[in-house]
């Protein structure tokens, strides 16, 4: 699984961006997005803000769980009391391997599935996936993944609060603190 984590301010501007890979199952923590995916990620995350804006009025949790899916990428969101959005895009693929585009005839890169998951109905996949792999790197929809991301967001939220407590920063400014970055990377390594 590769991750793209982004903190988005209230005016849709990114405050913090980070790419990292999974550290579970022997993963080395390096993000392995293809070039196409790397370029699409900010677009995808930005577009899912639409769903965040809608969901935040109906859901009083801070962790909004998985809110969107684009091709094989899934997006989970956490929203702070000041409406700063933590967006995590996760792309499932086996650890330590670069996701290879499946030779789907006639399919352009954004829509090319990265892993060899056969297309299945949502009902069928719900049945098989729970019995199959429940590990975090492989299954973005499993409750385990959801829980891991919740813990990750919780830790990041804590660190983020400490960072914005700095009277010389604003909640709308870029977060440049190296310690903050380090902490987020550590949280990613710990939970994802």
């Amino acid at each position, binding site marked *: 699984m590769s991750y793209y984590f982004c903190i988005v301010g209230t005016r849709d501007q990114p405050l913090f961006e980070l790419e990292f890979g999974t550290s579970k199952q022997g993963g080395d923590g390096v993000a392995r997005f293809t*070039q196409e995916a790397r370029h699409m990620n900010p677009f995808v995350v930005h577009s899912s803000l639409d769903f965040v*804006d809608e969901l935040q009025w109906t859901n*009083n949790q801070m962790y909004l769980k998985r809110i969107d899916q684009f091709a094989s990428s899934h997006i989970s969101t956490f929203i702070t009391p000041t409406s700063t959005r933590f967006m995590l895009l996760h792309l499932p693929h086996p650890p330590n391997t670069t996701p290879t585009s499946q030779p789907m005839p006639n399919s352009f890169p954004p829509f090319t599935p990265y892993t060899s998951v056969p297309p299945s109905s949502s*009902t069928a996949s719900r049945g098989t996936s729970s019995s199959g792999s429940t590990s975090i790197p492989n299954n973005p929809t499993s409750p385990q993944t959801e829980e891991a991301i919740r813990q990750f967001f919780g830790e990041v939220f804590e660190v983020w609060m400490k960072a914005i407590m700095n009277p*010389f920063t604003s909640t*709308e400014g870029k977060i440049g603190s190296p310690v903050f970055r380090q902490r987020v990377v550590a949280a990613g390594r710990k939970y994802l």
Partner: protein
Amino acid sequence: MTPPEHEIGRPGGLFQRPQPELALRSSRELISSDLPGITASSSSSFARTRKSLSISESRPALTAAPSSISKSRSPSNLRSQSHERSSIGSGGSSPSTSKIDSNDAYKQIIVRSFAPRVAVFASSDTEEFVRRKGFQDGLYSLLRPYGERLHSKVVIRDSVGGSRGWDDFGIRFMDSQKLQKHSAHRASGDIVGKDARNLFNGSQRISEHSRSSYSNETGTSIDNLLDHYLRTAGAASQDQGKHYFDFEGTPYEQRPELSPSYPAYLRKLLSSASIVPYETFSHPVACLIAVSSRHPAPIEALRQLYSNTGNRSKNIPAWMGTEYLRYYVLIHDEENDDITKSIALFDLMKRHFGLHCHLLRLRRSQCVPTDDDSTKVPSCEWLSAEEEIGKLCMRDYTSEVELAEKYILESDSSAIKSLLREMVTQSIVPFMESRVMIWNDQIASRRRGIGGRFMSLSKRWTGFGSAKSTKTGLIGVSNPSGSNYDYQQGFYPPETPEATMRQLGDYAFMLRDWKLAYSTYDFLRADFGHDKAWSYHAAANEMAAITSLLIPQVFSSKSRSESPDQMLDNAAYSYLTRCSMTFNVNRCLTIAIELLKNRGPNAADDAARWGGKLLELGVLTPSAQALITERVAECYMSRTRAYLAVARTRTRQAALWNVLASDSWLRLDGVDQARARLREASAFYGLDNQDSAGLPFPSMQGLWQRLTVALRDAGGDDYAALIDTSVDEEDFELNSTEEREQLNAVTRPSITSSTDAEGFTNQDAGHTRSASLDDQELQSDGFE
């Protein structure tokens, strides 16, 4: 530029979210933290800081224009609906009572595409007669253009007794040769199937394999055709003063359709379905039997033709029911034959064959445009993709004379029109109505009742009372579940209740009685699922979803939106994974997208979601993929209008999908379309003049610049008009030169390749800056 009023109260700015549930950590934890620069010393000061922060942030959130639509709603509403009409080209309101809506155009195309088929069986002398008139393909090619549009209101009674008039009812004529070809195809498939009898349902797999290869062929031929349209559309639009892509400032509600080829694509998709066992739309509802007055023994000829249409004739595939209407036509030659003799013959025909007869009076001579009362034969709207390609190829290779449009005499044209009007209103529609009524009474309601459910249950579990077809008996393998499904050949024999009910559903659909059709399909899909007749199962699910979307919205939107999703999901899964029929998946989901989009902004979200799924399935050809991406963008754009609650707009999704569509078009060298989509996208991102610096995320600039540069390199006359003079051209040039070189190195414009994440380097620079607590940062961030 001032932001529009509705954007002021954007969420994420001032307003706090309701009830954050995560409690703030205790002050001790905060103090013990080793983060640099944290000055909070107690919980109260923490609270104060929070408060001051949220207050200081509130003002900029109010005043600054958020990154959303800042597209000026300029008053150029002039280009309004006339374009929309012309780009669709089909015109005509579907129910004569309802008001015309721009979105209804696609719904009309879909509804009209499911029209009753009429097979034409003509005697050889009739064919000769028609060929002399200049129609090389025989009688059906003469009748076909007139059948597609009847120019008269057809009143249809539905199952509950209400009647309604339809202006756009039509019928499709098909060649009887087509049926014969299919039955031959079928036979060869059976031979292969016999070899594979050891496998449980081997022949089913094989026949489905051949079917899927057929569907792939259809896909490619549609794609070829699309390419042709795209090429010619470019030329055509230049002639018409580039109205296709010149729509800057047009309000969303009244924008002309962007791709002129999309309606054409939809038509081809809908009219290219082949004749298959699992749906009966392509089976004939009636057949037209024609002889001419020249024939020495017309009654015998009619009998002969009748037997060709008959029950166990070789011309009809085994899975096709033969209980269709026979309609007899006597063609009278006005120039050479005696009308009194013909009338006497016609009376004799009526005595022999009943009321479904017509005397068609035509003139033998071929008509040329210079004749006095000549009239042009209308062109066929519903040619399938293969036929259209054939026609285009003919156009390339044949001489100018044959290419010319066909003309017939005014009197002939009106005679054909009155024949068709009479045939449809007095024979075909009443025949279908009575069939629907009979089947509904005798089969459907019997099975729908409690007794029927019990019977089907007992049949399923005990194998008791199953009416096995003769075919199964011959082969000698009993069906394990005791169903009527013929596992060896992969179809329900036409006389079984399941096949008849499917036909009932299709007839009801063609008569536009959506409710009856829906209840029938809904009932069938469970049955087919139990019998593991997957192609039938998929088709029934598809049609159930489509009909449920066609029923006017009377129920609450929630309960309605659940079930079509489920049915579409089943249909797509069965089609693709179990039967690998890619063409059908494409058709099913494309129809669903259009119908969902037609149901208003809430369903448009679902439409977009299905569009995304369709793209991910990888069943589309590149041009189709570009078109569908564009449709998804359209779906989201229909949700960017002002009357929606601000929190529920889909501005950013619309922007994303416009970028994707632009990218897809560029890969296909559709420069004009790509440019138009990019312009839309820049409006949604709130950019002035497509300047990438205004994008909300700095890391977006890589892809964006690649697109703009590729479009600039592609050139075109109107590119100068695209880039406003206020853009600092020199600066832009400097930024993008090295990317340009990279791009030129790649021959095929694969836009998103070969670059590093610029956003991250950008961000790193920012990080070193603010780590040292820059003064600039202090001043800029709200310490006034």
